[in-house]
């Protein structure tokens, strides 16, 4: 008997009840934390509710933003989906994996790492997390390619060259080690590497934070172009509304580990409903 897919055909990612705790948690701890209490830390047990009951769907060709201040749990959510951190509860179904029948949170760490080869890529804020700095730009792209079974040197070179060209890394730097690259260039290499095996899902964790404004806008332009071109399902985590506005159609707002608003991006920016969203938008607009 085959189980019917849990996710609808149009959703590439479905996240339900995703939660992450640090320390022992009971129902009281959930009730004593969140935006109403102004903290994610349970005052009785000291445990932290880093994320509680996060739900969303993302379709192919769509980008969802997760907004919030530092410590709101937005990066935790992304890392739980990526498999960088174990989650405490909930489910994540990916259309590209077993047609969405399996909760990928139940997979073994090894199986989750396999997903990262050609199903799901992450672009981190810090390129050192997504790249080997002592390896050339081409070598960093060769890594996921060889992991996916590429064994032809010339074919790897051609693919790496295409990707670096697409992400606007000068090709004469292809054989330089990434440590000698500027921050913006490293980020472009990281994006090229993330796209190496045409994954249907890409997660971006503060992709332009830490870059200066002119470089950041170039990288953003690039990401936007890629999103339009490649029909990816994307989740973008950022505290920067300029990034969210430029890349996403919908977004969720997180505060103290909870989702406080779920809206179309335009709508959120024009008419935020939750007091915290209003504060964030006002701060960004001033």
């Amino acid at each position: 008997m085959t189980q019917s897919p849990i996710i609808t055909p149009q959703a590439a990612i479905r996240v339900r009840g995703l939660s992450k705790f640090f320390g022992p948690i009971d129902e009281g701890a959930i009730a004593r934390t969140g935006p109403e209490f102004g903290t994610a830390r349970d005052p009785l047990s000291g445990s932290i509710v880093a994320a509680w009951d996060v739900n969303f769907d993302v379709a192919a060709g769509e980008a969802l933003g997760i907004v919030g201040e530092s410590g709101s749990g937005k990066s935790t959510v992304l890392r739980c989906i990526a498999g960088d951190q174990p989650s405490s509860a909930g489910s994540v179904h990916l259309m590209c994996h077993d047609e969405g029948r399996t909760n990928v949170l139940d997979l073994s760490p090894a199986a989750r790492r396999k997903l990262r080869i050609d199903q799901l890529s992450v672009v981190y804020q810090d390129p050192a997390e997504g790249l080997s700095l002592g390896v050339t730009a081409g070598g960093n792209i060769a890594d996921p390619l060889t992991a996916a079974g590429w064994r032809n040197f010339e074919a790897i070179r051609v693919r790496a060259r295409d990707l670096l060209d697409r992400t606007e890394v000068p090709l004469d730097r292809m054989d330089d080690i990434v440590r000698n690259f500027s921050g913006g260039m490293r980020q472009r290499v990281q994006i090229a590497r993330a796209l190496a095996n045409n994954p249907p899902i890409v997660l971006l964790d503060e992709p332009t934070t830490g870059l200066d404004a002119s470089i950041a806008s170039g990288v953003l332009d690039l990401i936007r172009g890629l999103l339009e071109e490649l029909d990816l399902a994307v989740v973008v985590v950022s505290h920067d509304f300029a990034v969210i506005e430029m890349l996403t159609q919908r977004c969720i707002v997180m505060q103290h580990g909870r989702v406080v608003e779920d809206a179309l991006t335009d709508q959120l920016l024009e008419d935020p409903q939750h007091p915290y969203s209003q504060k964030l938008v006002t701060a960004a607009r001033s």
Partner: protein
Amino acid sequence: MNSTVDEIAGPPQSVPFALLDEESKREIRRALLQAVCIPGFQVPFGSREMPVARGWGSGGLQISLAIVGVNDTIKVIDQGDDEGVNAVNLRRLITSSTGIEETSETDEATIVQSRHRIPEDAMTSDHILVLQVPVPEPLRGIERNMKELERMHAEGDYSKMWVSLYEDKVRNGVITQTTGYPCLVAQRYVMATTPIPRWDIPRLHQAEFLTLFGAGREKRVYAIPPFTDVEPLTFEDVPFEVEASNGAKCRLCGSEETFLVETPGSESRWSCSDTAWCRRKRTK
């Protein structure tokens, strides 16, 4: 009351057969059995203190002593040379503690202990090749974290090894690694063929003989059972090549089809690395 040294030492103790006590030999043999069952997998073992320093063949020596029987004949070579100082000393240690015969002829030997070479003569299922290994971990230069190394082997995740081959080719135009070329054993584990040169690697593939690798300092043994696939890692469009001699001949026997080594200084500077093979060719 004063004691003499003789009194403190007590009555002379007999040295066990093959130097190691029976429990130690059994432990090493157990590790070797596991190694043979999982070709290319590095099995930890309790490397003993030996009368040679670690790094001087103590791993190979312990394997030879653990598997040797009264009817065996031992050949020991160092860089293909039976008369190398270390080879002579190890051979003496083995024969004096067991009373077995020694030889420099490969076809007379049942156990061949070697550093850096596989003898030129074809070996058969009558032989066991024991290699002394300095660095058993093929990924050592690529990843330092032991936990991560363990994970990479367990999951067969060798993409970093491929990246290092890619980088080597990009930087140098060729893959420069000479000794210890990484090989995939039985389609599963990547293994360091340290310390043999590339020349000998095709001779491990589907070999008739059993090869046992011992790293005393690193406390690991591993094995290639007879008739096992041993494939050097290389890209499809970058063929694996053995060392080229560029038309050089052995200055002693004139051989062109053996692994030659360069002797600095002399006029015709190349000679066979396998001295026993070279001598036999000249006396024929």
